[in-house]
Protein backbone atom coordinates (compact mmCIF):
# COMPACT_ATOMS: atom_id res chain seq x y z
CA UNK A 1 0.00 0.00 0.00
CA UNK A 2 1.05 3.65 0.03
CA UNK A 3 4.36 4.51 1.57
CA UNK A 4 3.37 8.03 2.57
CA UNK A 5 2.23 8.71 6.08
CA UNK A 6 -1.52 9.31 6.30
CA UNK A 7 -2.38 12.98 6.25
CA UNK A 8 -3.72 14.66 9.33
CA UNK A 9 -7.48 14.27 9.29
CA UNK A 10 -9.50 17.30 8.31
CA UNK A 11 -11.93 18.58 10.84
CA UNK A 12 -12.57 21.42 13.24
CA UNK A 13 -9.43 23.34 14.15
CA UNK A 14 -7.50 21.32 16.68
CA UNK A 15 -5.41 23.14 19.15
CA UNK A 16 -3.12 21.76 21.72
CA UNK A 17 -5.07 22.21 24.88
CA UNK A 18 -3.11 23.21 27.91
CA UNK A 19 -4.80 20.52 29.89
CA UNK A 20 -3.86 17.88 27.42
CA UNK A 21 -0.24 18.60 28.21
CA UNK A 22 -0.56 16.42 31.26
CA UNK A 23 -2.16 19.27 33.11
CA UNK A 24 1.19 20.95 33.21
CA UNK A 25 1.73 23.55 30.56
CA UNK A 26 5.36 24.00 29.63
CA UNK A 27 6.67 27.50 30.42
CA UNK A 28 5.71 28.89 27.04
CA UNK A 29 6.62 32.51 27.66
CA UNK A 30 10.00 31.63 29.10
CA UNK A 31 10.75 29.48 26.07
CA UNK A 32 10.20 32.38 23.74
CA UNK A 33 11.98 34.92 25.86
CA UNK A 34 15.62 34.45 24.84
CA UNK A 35 14.86 34.62 21.13
CA UNK A 36 12.51 37.55 21.45
CA UNK A 37 14.64 39.46 23.93
CA UNK A 38 17.84 39.09 21.97
CA UNK A 39 16.26 40.08 18.70
CA UNK A 40 14.56 43.02 20.32
CA UNK A 41 17.87 44.27 21.64
CA UNK A 42 19.65 43.55 18.38
CA UNK A 43 17.10 45.39 16.31
CA UNK A 44 16.44 48.39 18.50
CA UNK A 45 19.63 49.35 20.30
CA UNK A 46 21.90 49.76 17.26
CA UNK A 47 19.09 51.44 15.36
CA UNK A 48 18.60 54.10 17.98
CA UNK A 49 22.29 54.59 18.26
CA UNK A 50 22.61 55.16 14.54
CA UNK A 51 19.75 57.60 14.68
CA UNK A 52 21.36 59.37 17.62
CA UNK A 53 24.75 59.61 16.00
CA UNK A 54 23.29 60.91 12.78
CA UNK A 55 22.32 64.09 14.57
CA UNK A 56 25.72 64.61 16.11
CA UNK A 57 29.03 65.89 14.98
CA UNK A 58 31.08 62.83 15.81
CA UNK A 59 34.41 62.02 14.28
CA UNK A 60 36.76 59.50 15.81
CA UNK A 61 39.72 61.72 15.04
CA UNK A 62 38.15 64.74 16.58
CA UNK A 63 37.62 65.19 20.29
CA UNK A 64 34.72 67.55 19.65
CA UNK A 65 31.34 65.84 19.95
CA UNK A 66 28.16 67.87 19.88
CA UNK A 67 24.61 67.89 18.67
CA UNK A 68 24.54 69.16 15.11
CA UNK A 69 20.93 68.71 14.07
CA UNK A 70 20.51 68.08 10.40
CA UNK A 71 24.08 69.10 9.56
CA UNK A 72 25.11 65.58 8.63
CA UNK A 73 22.10 65.08 6.44
CA UNK A 74 22.61 68.37 4.65
CA UNK A 75 26.21 67.51 3.99
CA UNK A 76 25.26 64.04 2.87
CA UNK A 77 22.61 65.09 0.44
CA UNK A 78 24.87 67.66 -1.20
CA UNK A 79 27.77 65.26 -1.48
CA UNK A 80 28.43 64.17 -5.04
CA UNK A 81 29.58 60.85 -3.77
CA UNK A 82 26.20 60.16 -2.25
CA UNK A 83 24.28 60.87 -5.39
CA UNK A 84 26.68 58.73 -7.35
CA UNK A 85 26.45 55.92 -4.85
CA UNK A 86 22.67 55.90 -4.80
CA UNK A 87 22.56 55.90 -8.58
CA UNK A 88 25.12 53.10 -8.70
CA UNK A 89 23.18 51.14 -6.12
CA UNK A 90 20.04 51.38 -8.19
CA UNK A 91 21.82 50.48 -11.41
CA UNK A 92 23.45 47.54 -9.70
CA UNK A 93 20.23 46.27 -8.18
CA UNK A 94 18.08 46.66 -11.26
CA UNK A 95 20.64 45.14 -13.61
CA UNK A 96 21.22 42.13 -11.45
CA UNK A 97 17.49 41.66 -11.01
CA UNK A 98 16.87 41.72 -14.71
CA UNK A 99 19.64 39.26 -15.47
CA UNK A 100 18.91 36.85 -12.64
CA UNK A 101 15.15 36.80 -12.99
CA UNK A 102 15.21 36.70 -16.77
CA UNK A 103 17.85 34.03 -17.09
CA UNK A 104 16.61 32.32 -13.99
CA UNK A 105 13.19 31.77 -15.47
CA UNK A 106 14.68 30.28 -18.62
CA UNK A 107 17.02 28.08 -16.61
CA UNK A 108 14.16 26.94 -14.41
CA UNK A 109 12.15 25.87 -17.42
CA UNK A 110 15.23 24.17 -18.86
CA UNK A 111 15.97 22.25 -15.68
CA UNK A 112 12.37 21.16 -15.47
CA UNK A 113 12.79 19.22 -18.69
CA UNK A 114 13.76 15.61 -18.71
CA UNK A 115 17.34 15.04 -19.81
CA UNK A 116 20.29 12.90 -18.96
CA UNK A 117 22.35 13.87 -15.96
CA UNK A 118 19.75 16.35 -14.80
CA UNK A 119 20.69 16.02 -11.15
CA UNK A 120 24.33 16.83 -11.74
CA UNK A 121 23.59 19.68 -14.13
CA UNK A 122 21.39 21.16 -11.48
CA UNK A 123 24.15 21.00 -8.90
CA UNK A 124 26.53 22.73 -11.29
CA UNK A 125 24.09 25.53 -11.94
CA UNK A 126 23.35 26.03 -8.27
CA UNK A 127 26.98 26.01 -7.18
CA UNK A 128 27.91 29.69 -7.63
CA UNK A 129 25.53 30.70 -4.86
CA UNK A 130 27.57 28.81 -2.32
CA UNK A 131 30.88 30.32 -3.24
CA UNK A 132 32.17 32.85 -0.74
CA UNK A 133 31.74 36.34 -2.16
CA UNK A 134 35.39 37.17 -1.62
CA UNK A 135 36.50 34.04 -3.45
CA UNK A 136 34.20 34.66 -6.36
CA UNK A 137 35.30 38.26 -6.59
CA UNK A 138 38.96 37.30 -6.75
CA UNK A 139 38.38 34.52 -9.25
CA UNK A 140 36.57 36.88 -11.57
CA UNK A 141 39.06 39.65 -11.08
CA UNK A 142 42.29 37.71 -11.44
CA UNK A 143 41.58 34.59 -13.37
CA UNK A 144 38.93 35.78 -15.75
CA UNK A 145 38.78 39.51 -16.13
CA UNK A 146 42.42 40.42 -15.74
CA UNK A 147 43.41 42.11 -18.99
CA UNK A 148 46.79 40.43 -19.17
CA UNK A 149 46.49 37.09 -17.46
CA UNK A 150 42.80 36.49 -17.42
CA UNK A 151 40.93 34.08 -19.64
CA UNK A 152 38.60 36.70 -21.13
CA UNK A 153 41.53 38.75 -22.26
CA UNK A 154 43.01 35.71 -23.95
CA UNK A 155 39.77 34.84 -25.71
CA UNK A 156 39.32 38.37 -27.01
CA UNK A 157 42.88 38.57 -28.21
CA UNK A 158 42.63 35.28 -30.03
CA UNK A 159 39.84 36.68 -32.20
CA UNK A 160 41.82 39.80 -32.84
CA UNK A 161 40.09 42.12 -30.40
CA UNK A 162 41.63 44.12 -27.65
CA UNK A 163 41.40 42.84 -24.09
CA UNK A 164 39.03 44.81 -21.90
CA UNK A 165 40.37 46.21 -18.69
CA UNK A 166 37.13 45.62 -16.85
CA UNK A 167 37.94 47.15 -13.54
CA UNK A 168 39.44 50.29 -14.98
CA UNK A 169 36.96 50.99 -17.75
CA UNK A 170 33.75 49.27 -16.77
CA UNK A 171 33.99 48.76 -13.03
CA UNK A 172 30.29 48.80 -12.27
CA UNK A 173 29.55 46.43 -15.11
CA UNK A 174 32.21 44.06 -13.83
CA UNK A 175 30.59 44.10 -10.40
CA UNK A 176 27.20 43.52 -11.96
CA UNK A 177 28.48 40.48 -13.81
CA UNK A 178 30.04 39.03 -10.69
CA UNK A 179 27.00 39.58 -8.53
CA UNK A 180 24.63 38.32 -11.17
CA UNK A 181 26.68 35.14 -11.46
CA UNK A 182 26.41 34.60 -7.74
CA UNK A 183 22.68 35.25 -7.51
CA UNK A 184 21.50 33.53 -10.68
CA UNK A 185 21.34 30.17 -8.88
CA UNK A 186 19.15 31.65 -6.17
CA UNK A 187 16.56 32.81 -8.68
CA UNK A 188 16.86 29.59 -10.65
CA UNK A 189 16.41 27.37 -7.62
CA UNK A 190 13.39 29.21 -6.34
CA UNK A 191 11.75 29.44 -9.73
CA UNK A 192 12.55 25.81 -10.44
CA UNK A 193 10.82 24.77 -7.24
CA UNK A 194 7.85 26.78 -8.31
CA UNK A 195 7.81 25.39 -11.84
CA UNK A 196 7.94 21.87 -10.50
CA UNK A 197 4.90 22.59 -8.40
CA UNK A 198 2.92 23.31 -11.51
CA UNK A 199 0.21 20.71 -11.79
CA UNK A 200 1.07 18.47 -14.75
CA UNK A 201 -2.61 18.19 -15.51
CA UNK A 202 -2.72 21.91 -16.29
CA UNK A 203 0.04 21.45 -18.83
CA UNK A 204 -1.66 18.42 -20.31
CA UNK A 205 -4.95 20.27 -20.63
CA UNK A 206 -3.13 23.07 -22.43
CA UNK A 207 -1.50 20.60 -24.76
CA UNK A 208 -4.87 19.06 -25.53
CA UNK A 209 -6.04 22.56 -26.39
CA UNK A 210 -3.20 22.79 -28.87
CA UNK A 211 -0.62 24.91 -27.05
CA UNK A 212 2.91 24.75 -28.40
CA UNK A 213 6.00 25.39 -26.27
CA UNK A 214 5.95 29.18 -26.73
CA UNK A 215 2.27 29.55 -25.80
CA UNK A 216 2.81 27.15 -22.95
CA UNK A 217 5.60 29.36 -21.69
CA UNK A 218 3.72 32.62 -21.84
CA UNK A 219 0.22 31.53 -20.93
CA UNK A 220 0.75 28.79 -18.41
CA UNK A 221 4.23 28.94 -16.93
CA UNK A 222 4.76 32.67 -16.54
CA UNK A 223 1.42 33.35 -14.80
CA UNK A 224 2.08 30.45 -12.46
CA UNK A 225 5.50 31.82 -11.68
CA UNK A 226 4.28 35.38 -11.19
CA UNK A 227 4.06 35.08 -7.45
CA UNK A 228 7.43 33.42 -7.04
CA UNK A 229 9.03 35.96 -9.32
CA UNK A 230 7.62 38.64 -7.06
CA UNK A 231 9.13 36.97 -4.02
CA UNK A 232 12.48 36.49 -5.73
CA UNK A 233 12.59 40.13 -6.76
CA UNK A 234 11.80 41.39 -3.31
CA UNK A 235 14.24 39.17 -1.48
CA UNK A 236 17.03 39.76 -3.97
CA UNK A 237 16.45 43.48 -3.75
CA UNK A 238 16.85 43.36 -0.02
CA UNK A 239 20.20 41.62 -0.26
CA UNK A 240 21.44 43.45 -3.35
CA UNK A 241 21.00 46.77 -1.62
CA UNK A 242 23.75 45.60 0.73
CA UNK A 243 26.39 44.37 -1.72
CA UNK A 244 29.74 45.04 -0.11
CA UNK A 245 32.39 42.35 -0.26
CA UNK A 246 32.72 42.24 -4.01
CA UNK A 247 33.41 45.96 -4.19
CA UNK A 248 35.69 45.86 -1.16
CA UNK A 249 37.84 43.18 -2.70
CA UNK A 250 38.04 44.35 -6.29
CA UNK A 251 37.61 48.04 -6.95
CA UNK A 252 37.33 49.64 -3.53
CA UNK A 253 34.60 51.72 -5.07
CA UNK A 254 36.81 53.14 -7.78
CA UNK A 255 37.97 54.45 -10.01
CA UNK A 256 36.67 57.54 -8.22
CA UNK A 257 33.13 56.74 -7.28
CA UNK A 258 32.38 54.73 -10.38
CA UNK A 259 31.66 51.52 -8.53
CA UNK A 260 30.75 52.89 -5.13
CA UNK A 261 27.35 51.89 -3.87
CA UNK A 262 25.62 53.12 -0.77
CA UNK A 263 26.94 50.47 1.63
CA UNK A 264 30.48 50.99 0.47
CA UNK A 265 30.14 54.75 0.79
CA UNK A 266 28.96 54.42 4.37
CA UNK A 267 31.79 52.05 5.11
CA UNK A 268 34.19 54.60 3.70
CA UNK A 269 32.78 57.39 5.85
CA UNK A 270 32.86 55.21 8.94
CA UNK A 271 36.03 53.22 8.83
CA UNK A 272 38.19 55.16 6.43
CA UNK A 273 37.19 58.76 7.18
CA UNK A 274 36.17 57.95 10.75
CA UNK A 275 33.16 60.21 10.32
CA UNK A 276 30.71 58.51 12.61
CA UNK A 277 28.08 61.22 12.26
CA UNK A 278 28.14 61.20 8.49
CA UNK A 279 28.19 57.44 8.29
CA UNK A 280 25.20 57.27 10.60
CA UNK A 281 23.25 59.66 8.45
CA UNK A 282 24.07 57.49 5.46
CA UNK A 283 23.06 54.48 7.48
CA UNK A 284 19.68 56.00 8.16
CA UNK A 285 19.24 56.53 4.45
CA UNK A 286 20.12 52.91 3.74
CA UNK A 287 17.68 51.76 6.40
CA UNK A 288 14.89 53.83 4.92
CA UNK A 289 15.52 52.40 1.46
CA UNK A 290 15.57 48.86 2.76
CA UNK A 291 12.40 49.39 4.75
CA UNK A 292 10.50 50.46 1.70
CA UNK A 293 11.29 47.18 0.02
CA UNK A 294 10.75 45.26 3.23
CA UNK A 295 7.27 46.67 3.60
CA UNK A 296 6.18 45.11 0.35
CA UNK A 297 7.86 41.86 1.19
CA UNK A 298 6.25 41.68 4.61
CA UNK A 299 2.81 42.16 3.20
CA UNK A 300 3.39 39.33 0.78
CA UNK A 301 4.78 37.06 3.50
CA UNK A 302 1.96 37.84 5.87
CA UNK A 303 -0.39 36.21 3.45
CA UNK A 304 1.55 32.99 3.23
CA UNK A 305 2.55 32.27 6.79
CA UNK A 306 0.13 29.94 8.54
CA UNK A 307 0.36 30.26 12.26
Amino acid at each position, binding site marked *: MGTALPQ*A*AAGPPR*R*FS*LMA*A*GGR*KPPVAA*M*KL*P*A*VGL*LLAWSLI*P*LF*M*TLWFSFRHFNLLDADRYFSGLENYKYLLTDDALVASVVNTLILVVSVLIVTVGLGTLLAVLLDQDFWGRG*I*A*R*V*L*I*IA*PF*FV*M*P*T*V*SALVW*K*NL*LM*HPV*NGLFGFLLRSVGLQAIDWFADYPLTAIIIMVA*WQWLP*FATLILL*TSVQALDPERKEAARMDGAGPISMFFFIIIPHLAR*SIGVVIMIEMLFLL*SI*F*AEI*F*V*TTSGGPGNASTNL*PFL*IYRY*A*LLDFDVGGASAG*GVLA*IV*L*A*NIVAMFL*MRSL*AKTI*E*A
Partner: protein
Amino acid sequence: MNRTVRKKAITTAVAWLVALLIFFPIIWMGLASFKTEIEAVATPPRLFFSPTLENYRDVAFGRANYLHCAFNSIYVSFGSTALALLIAVPAAYAMAFFPTGRTKDMLLWMLSTKFMPAVGVLVPIYLIFRDTGLLDVRFGLLVVYTLVNLPIVVWMLFSFFKEVPPEILEAGRMDGAHARDEVLLLLLPLALPGIASTALLAIILSWNEAFWSLNLTGPAAAPLTYYIASFSSPEGLFWAKLSAASTLAIAPILVFGWLSQKQLVRGLTFGAVK
Protein backbone atom coordinates in the same frame (compact mmCIF):
# COMPACT_ATOMS: atom_id res chain seq x y z
CA MET B 1 15.86 8.31 -33.53
CA ASN B 2 12.31 8.99 -32.49
CA ARG B 3 11.01 12.39 -31.61
CA THR B 4 11.15 12.15 -27.82
CA VAL B 5 14.68 10.82 -27.76
CA ARG B 6 15.81 13.53 -30.15
CA LYS B 7 14.22 16.22 -28.03
CA LYS B 8 15.88 14.77 -24.97
CA ALA B 9 19.27 14.70 -26.68
CA ILE B 10 19.04 18.33 -27.73
CA THR B 11 17.86 19.36 -24.29
CA THR B 12 20.71 17.45 -22.72
CA ALA B 13 23.24 19.17 -24.93
CA VAL B 14 21.87 22.64 -24.32
CA ALA B 15 21.43 22.12 -20.61
CA TRP B 16 24.92 20.78 -20.10
CA LEU B 17 26.42 23.55 -22.16
CA VAL B 18 24.70 26.11 -19.97
CA ALA B 19 25.58 24.27 -16.78
CA LEU B 20 29.24 24.05 -17.68
CA LEU B 21 29.35 27.70 -18.70
CA ILE B 22 27.92 28.71 -15.38
CA PHE B 23 30.12 26.40 -13.39
CA PHE B 24 33.15 27.34 -15.45
CA PRO B 25 34.75 29.91 -13.14
CA ILE B 26 34.82 27.34 -10.37
CA ILE B 27 36.34 24.73 -12.67
CA TRP B 28 38.90 27.23 -13.84
CA MET B 29 39.84 28.06 -10.31
CA GLY B 30 40.07 24.39 -9.44
CA LEU B 31 42.35 23.80 -12.39
CA ALA B 32 44.55 26.73 -11.44
CA SER B 33 44.98 25.30 -7.99
CA PHE B 34 46.78 22.33 -9.43
CA LYS B 35 49.09 24.36 -11.64
CA THR B 36 52.41 25.86 -10.78
CA GLU B 37 52.41 29.63 -10.36
CA ILE B 38 54.03 30.13 -13.72
CA GLU B 39 51.55 27.92 -15.50
CA ALA B 40 48.70 29.63 -13.74
CA VAL B 41 49.47 32.99 -15.29
CA ALA B 42 50.69 31.67 -18.60
CA THR B 43 49.21 33.09 -21.76
CA PRO B 44 47.71 31.41 -23.61
CA PRO B 45 46.05 29.71 -20.62
CA ARG B 46 46.81 26.05 -20.56
CA LEU B 47 44.04 23.50 -20.38
CA PHE B 48 46.37 20.58 -20.19
CA PHE B 49 49.23 20.49 -17.78
CA SER B 50 50.80 18.18 -15.29
CA PRO B 51 49.02 18.69 -12.02
CA THR B 52 50.86 19.33 -8.82
CA LEU B 53 49.81 19.37 -5.21
CA GLU B 54 52.45 21.85 -4.17
CA ASN B 55 49.94 24.68 -3.77
CA TYR B 56 47.73 22.71 -1.47
CA ARG B 57 50.72 21.60 0.52
CA ASP B 58 51.94 25.10 0.78
CA VAL B 59 48.60 26.55 1.78
CA ALA B 60 47.60 23.90 4.26
CA PHE B 61 50.91 23.31 5.89
CA GLY B 62 53.15 26.19 4.91
CA ARG B 63 50.94 29.04 5.95
CA ALA B 64 49.88 28.88 9.54
CA ASN B 65 47.62 31.76 8.69
CA TYR B 66 45.36 29.65 6.54
CA LEU B 67 44.72 26.94 9.07
CA HIS B 68 44.14 29.54 11.71
CA CYS B 69 41.53 31.29 9.60
CA ALA B 70 39.94 28.00 8.64
CA PHE B 71 39.61 27.17 12.27
CA ASN B 72 38.04 30.54 12.90
CA SER B 73 35.53 29.94 10.15
CA ILE B 74 34.61 26.58 11.62
CA TYR B 75 34.43 27.96 15.13
CA VAL B 76 32.23 30.86 14.17
CA SER B 77 29.90 29.05 11.76
CA PHE B 78 29.30 25.94 13.76
CA GLY B 79 29.31 27.79 17.04
CA SER B 80 26.79 30.40 15.99
CA THR B 81 24.56 27.71 14.49
CA ALA B 82 24.65 25.65 17.66
CA LEU B 83 23.85 28.68 19.77
CA ALA B 84 21.08 29.75 17.42
CA LEU B 85 19.53 26.28 17.57
CA LEU B 86 19.69 26.27 21.34
CA ILE B 87 17.75 29.52 21.50
CA ALA B 88 15.43 28.76 18.62
CA VAL B 89 14.20 25.24 19.44
CA PRO B 90 12.24 26.18 22.56
CA ALA B 91 10.86 29.30 20.87
CA ALA B 92 9.79 27.43 17.76
CA TYR B 93 8.23 24.68 19.89
CA ALA B 94 6.26 27.18 21.91
CA MET B 95 5.06 29.00 18.82
CA ALA B 96 4.21 25.90 16.83
CA PHE B 97 2.28 24.04 19.50
CA PHE B 98 0.93 26.72 21.77
CA PRO B 99 0.11 29.47 19.32
CA THR B 100 -1.56 32.62 20.48
CA GLY B 101 -3.24 35.33 18.49
CA ARG B 102 0.08 37.12 18.32
CA THR B 103 2.20 34.23 17.13
CA LYS B 104 1.96 35.12 13.46
CA ASP B 105 2.82 38.75 14.15
CA MET B 106 5.74 37.69 16.26
CA LEU B 107 7.13 35.50 13.49
CA LEU B 108 6.80 38.27 10.96
CA TRP B 109 8.49 40.68 13.30
CA MET B 110 11.37 38.27 13.78
CA LEU B 111 11.83 37.96 10.06
CA SER B 112 11.69 41.70 9.68
CA THR B 113 14.78 42.11 11.84
CA LYS B 114 16.62 40.40 9.04
CA PHE B 115 15.70 43.12 6.62
CA MET B 116 17.78 45.70 8.39
CA PRO B 117 20.78 46.45 6.20
CA ALA B 118 23.99 45.61 8.04
CA VAL B 119 25.55 48.82 6.87
CA GLY B 120 22.88 50.81 8.67
CA VAL B 121 24.10 49.60 12.02
CA LEU B 122 27.78 49.24 11.19
CA VAL B 123 28.72 52.28 13.20
CA PRO B 124 27.08 51.44 16.52
CA ILE B 125 28.07 47.80 16.39
CA TYR B 126 31.64 48.71 15.56
CA LEU B 127 31.77 51.20 18.39
CA ILE B 128 30.20 48.83 20.88
CA PHE B 129 32.63 46.11 19.92
CA ARG B 130 35.53 48.47 20.15
CA ASP B 131 34.55 49.68 23.58
CA THR B 132 33.83 46.21 24.96
CA GLY B 133 37.00 44.75 23.51
CA LEU B 134 35.16 42.44 21.16
CA LEU B 135 36.85 43.68 18.03
CA ASP B 136 38.94 40.96 16.51
CA VAL B 137 37.55 38.45 18.96
CA ARG B 138 36.08 35.24 17.57
CA PHE B 139 33.32 35.11 20.09
CA GLY B 140 32.13 38.58 19.12
CA LEU B 141 31.64 37.52 15.55
CA LEU B 142 29.92 34.38 16.74
CA VAL B 143 27.40 36.42 18.67
CA VAL B 144 26.69 38.63 15.66
CA TYR B 145 26.14 35.62 13.45
CA THR B 146 23.83 34.02 16.00
CA LEU B 147 21.67 37.11 16.02
CA VAL B 148 21.76 37.55 12.28
CA ASN B 149 20.70 33.96 11.61
CA LEU B 150 18.28 33.57 14.49
CA PRO B 151 15.18 34.73 12.58
CA ILE B 152 15.72 32.24 9.78
CA VAL B 153 16.50 29.41 12.19
CA VAL B 154 13.39 30.08 14.26
CA TRP B 155 11.26 30.39 11.20
CA MET B 156 12.52 27.20 9.59
CA LEU B 157 12.21 25.18 12.78
CA PHE B 158 8.70 26.53 13.24
CA SER B 159 7.68 25.43 9.78
CA PHE B 160 9.20 21.97 10.25
CA PHE B 161 7.57 21.51 13.64
CA LYS B 162 4.25 22.40 12.14
CA GLU B 163 4.64 19.61 9.65
CA VAL B 164 4.66 16.97 12.32
CA PRO B 165 1.09 15.65 12.32
CA PRO B 166 -0.47 16.79 15.60
CA GLU B 167 -2.20 13.43 16.01
CA ILE B 168 1.12 11.76 16.59
CA LEU B 169 1.82 14.02 19.52
CA GLU B 170 -1.73 13.54 20.77
CA ALA B 171 -1.26 9.80 20.59
CA GLY B 172 1.84 10.35 22.68
CA ARG B 173 -0.22 12.19 25.24
CA MET B 174 -2.76 9.41 25.34
CA ASP B 175 0.14 7.07 25.97
CA GLY B 176 1.17 9.18 28.92
CA ALA B 177 3.89 11.47 27.56
CA HIS B 178 4.57 14.74 29.33
CA ALA B 179 5.89 17.75 27.45
CA ARG B 180 9.51 16.76 27.93
CA ASP B 181 8.98 13.18 26.68
CA GLU B 182 6.98 14.52 23.81
CA VAL B 183 9.77 16.80 22.65
CA LEU B 184 12.65 14.43 23.20
CA LEU B 185 11.11 11.14 22.18
CA LEU B 186 8.66 12.17 19.50
CA LEU B 187 9.15 15.66 18.14
CA LEU B 188 12.90 15.86 17.75
CA PRO B 189 13.32 12.46 16.06
CA LEU B 190 10.55 13.31 13.64
CA ALA B 191 11.77 16.81 12.93
CA LEU B 192 15.40 15.75 12.70
CA PRO B 193 15.76 16.08 8.92
CA GLY B 194 14.31 19.56 9.13
CA ILE B 195 16.58 20.51 11.99
CA ALA B 196 19.56 19.21 10.04
CA SER B 197 18.69 21.27 6.97
CA THR B 198 18.19 24.32 9.11
CA ALA B 199 21.58 23.80 10.68
CA LEU B 200 23.20 23.35 7.27
CA LEU B 201 21.67 26.53 5.98
CA ALA B 202 22.80 28.50 9.01
CA ILE B 203 26.32 27.15 8.67
CA ILE B 204 26.41 28.08 5.00
CA LEU B 205 25.17 31.60 5.64
CA SER B 206 27.70 32.14 8.40
CA TRP B 207 30.60 30.66 6.50
CA ASN B 208 29.99 32.87 3.49
CA GLU B 209 29.08 36.03 5.36
CA ALA B 210 31.22 38.85 4.02
CA PHE B 211 30.38 42.06 5.78
CA TRP B 212 30.79 41.69 9.50
CA SER B 213 33.66 39.29 8.97
CA LEU B 214 35.50 41.94 7.02
CA ASN B 215 34.81 44.83 9.38
CA LEU B 216 34.87 43.39 12.85
CA THR B 217 37.88 41.15 12.67
CA GLY B 218 41.61 41.40 12.44
CA PRO B 219 44.39 38.83 12.35
CA ALA B 220 43.27 37.01 15.46
CA ALA B 221 39.66 36.32 14.63
CA ALA B 222 39.69 36.46 10.85
CA PRO B 223 37.68 33.75 9.16
CA LEU B 224 38.39 32.52 5.65
CA THR B 225 36.42 35.31 3.97
CA TYR B 226 38.84 37.81 5.44
CA TYR B 227 41.84 35.65 4.63
CA ILE B 228 40.93 35.45 0.97
CA ALA B 229 40.08 39.14 0.83
CA SER B 230 43.54 40.02 2.09
CA PHE B 231 44.89 38.90 -1.27
CA SER B 232 42.98 41.49 -3.19
CA SER B 233 46.00 43.37 -4.39
CA PRO B 234 47.13 41.86 -7.64
CA GLU B 235 50.31 39.94 -7.07
CA GLY B 236 50.57 37.59 -9.94
CA LEU B 237 52.73 35.04 -8.24
CA PHE B 238 50.05 34.13 -5.82
CA TRP B 239 47.31 32.97 -8.09
CA ALA B 240 47.82 29.27 -7.99
CA LYS B 241 48.09 29.29 -4.25
CA LEU B 242 45.14 31.62 -3.99
CA SER B 243 43.16 29.19 -6.09
CA ALA B 244 44.14 26.34 -3.83
CA ALA B 245 43.20 28.29 -0.75
CA SER B 246 39.91 29.30 -2.31
CA THR B 247 39.07 25.79 -3.40
CA LEU B 248 39.67 24.53 0.10
CA ALA B 249 37.58 27.36 1.45
CA ILE B 250 34.54 26.72 -0.67
CA ALA B 251 34.61 22.95 -1.05
CA PRO B 252 32.77 22.05 2.17
CA ILE B 253 30.09 24.60 1.52
CA LEU B 254 29.50 23.34 -1.98
CA VAL B 255 28.84 19.94 -0.45
CA PHE B 256 26.57 21.35 2.26
CA GLY B 257 24.70 23.34 -0.33
CA TRP B 258 24.15 20.32 -2.48
CA LEU B 259 22.83 18.36 0.50
CA SER B 260 20.35 20.96 1.59
CA GLN B 261 19.09 22.38 -1.70
CA LYS B 262 15.43 21.68 -1.20
CA GLN B 263 15.21 23.11 2.26
CA LEU B 264 17.19 26.12 1.17
CA VAL B 265 14.30 27.32 -0.89
CA ARG B 266 12.08 27.31 2.12
CA GLY B 267 14.61 29.06 4.30
CA LEU B 268 15.72 31.67 1.81
CA THR B 269 12.25 32.73 0.79
CA PHE B 270 10.99 32.67 4.36
CA GLY B 271 8.46 30.08 3.34
CA ALA B 272 6.87 32.11 0.62
CA VAL B 273 7.81 29.41 -1.84
CA LYS B 274 7.60 25.81 -0.74
